[in-house]
């Protein structure tokens, strides 16, 4: 039976879609049959980050409305056999998502997959609530700055009050993923530290993704950043995925790189 995982944040622009793509791809690389669902109806981006935007024929809303079946709408990744994408509709809005419709699609996907990753839209309204309603676990993506942390706090409250698990008296398992972490700026006091964020949110830390140019490059090329094995961000995502799967992995890239002698002399 599949596990439903929502990737959410409250605030926009913190790296939900990038993280969904990276974690979904990473899970597939680890051998799990994984499907990524884009819940950001009207602002479809996941297909771009996954590099399959030209292969979108039918979408999530078509399936909900019965205009297409799931097989027609699922896009199989060209790089990994066990990775699929269910794109959002670009021409509709979030009201097109109905609870029954979402449930129907998830129930069908559950039969076939190990992991169902729901890439949530920003905000706490209909779209975001639909994405998190059926979740077993939640990965809350946060940047080390106060507005993002407060919005994550808000969405954590929504998770524990408006999800199906909460209604059944259980709780959604929470994970904190800190993205765009810049150790130099943390040292200068411009950004919150990992400890600050952990203390405020009181959620177990899944991973810390350093700010890295490779993330933007990867997005632009439609290649999830975990596939870039030389980038710190890619490695940090892989660490996070291993922690998600229950392994114990040391945290890396938390401290500013010490400039060595040669770098100081010749520039880094």
């Amino acid at each position, binding site marked *: 039976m599949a596990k439903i995982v929502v990737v959410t944040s409250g605030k926009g622009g913190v790296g939900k879609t990038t993280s969904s793509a990276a974690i979904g791809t990473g899970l597939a690389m680890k051998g799990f049959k994984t499907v990524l669902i884009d819940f950001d109806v009207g602002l479809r981006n996941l297909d771009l980050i996954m590099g399959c935007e030209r292969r979108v024929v039918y979408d999530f809303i078509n399936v909900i409305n019965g205009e297409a079946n799931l097989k027609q709408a699922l896009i199989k990744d060209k790089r990994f056999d066990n990775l699929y994408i269910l794109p959002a509709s670009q021409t509709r809005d979030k009201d097109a998502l109905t609870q029954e419709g979402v449930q129907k699609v998830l129930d069908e996907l559950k039969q076939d997959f190990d992991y169902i990753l729901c890439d949530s839209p920003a905000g*706490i309204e209909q779209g975001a609530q639909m994405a998190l309603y059926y979740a077993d676990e939640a990965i809350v993506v946060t940047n080390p700055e106060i507005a993002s942390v*407060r*919005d994550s*706090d*808000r969405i*954590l*409250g*929504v998770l*524990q*009050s408006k999800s199906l698990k909460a209604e059944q008296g259980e709780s959604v398992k929470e994970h904190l993923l800190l993205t765009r972490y810049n150790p130099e700026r943390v040292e200068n006091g411009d950004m919150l530290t990992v400890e600050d964020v952990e*203390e*405020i*949110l*009181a959620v177990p830390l899944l991973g810390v993704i350093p700010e890295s140019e490779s993330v933007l490059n990867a997005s632009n090329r439609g290649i999830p950043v975990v596939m870039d094995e030389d980038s710190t961000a890619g490695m940090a995502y892989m660490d996070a995925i291993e922690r998600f799967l229950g392994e114990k992995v040391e945290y890396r890239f938390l401290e500013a790189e010490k400039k060595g002698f040669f770098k100081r002399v010749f520039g880094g």
Partner: protein
Amino acid sequence: MGTPFKFKGSLVPLTILELQEFEPHTLATELQKSTAKNAAFLAQAPVVVSLEHASDVDGIDLEGLLNACREHGIRPIGVKAPDALASAISDAQLAHVHLGKHRPAGEHDSGAKKTEEAPESQQGSTMVVDKPVRSGQQIYARDADLIVTASVSPGAEIIADGNIHVYGRLAGRAIAGASGNQDARIFCRALLAELISIAGCYKLSDDFPKRFWGNSIQVSLEDDALRIQKL
């Protein structure tokens, strides 16, 4: 089919006519002045006549008092008075509002050390919250104390009719004595609150003296002002 009615707990704004002493003639003249000034405000407004702080309650002419009120457009719906007046109040077909607590004179301002028992309605009832209270969440401990063992985030609101204890960081709003209990207090391990309030008397974080910020403190209400003390 269900019952055609239901009882619902509710808070209705009421005006209290607080009497220090009662002498029918003086009261009539004073009421005349006061109601002329506040005619619109008092017109037919439900009023509870309070004899809580009145001297010589036992010999009081309750009927005369109520008539004086009615003549000036005040509608008494109840009388707050010691139990000795219960039958007189019931004869007048009004509600008897019990005194919340009887404090002997002199103990009123002793502040620091209070040994009185909590009012009956709050005895033994405590609500315990073990999870963080997140931004946007609101928790209300009705007729009870509230204990939060985790943190209260900015943008969260915790409300109790009794005392509030927060063992994590208190960074949201804390409202104790929400239905008027002036003896309610707020205790916290780290004061980072946006607002604290006891029995309607509140302070915003800007008004907290700096030395308390982030510290372990208690807040009490003394002479209608919030008093913050280090623990």
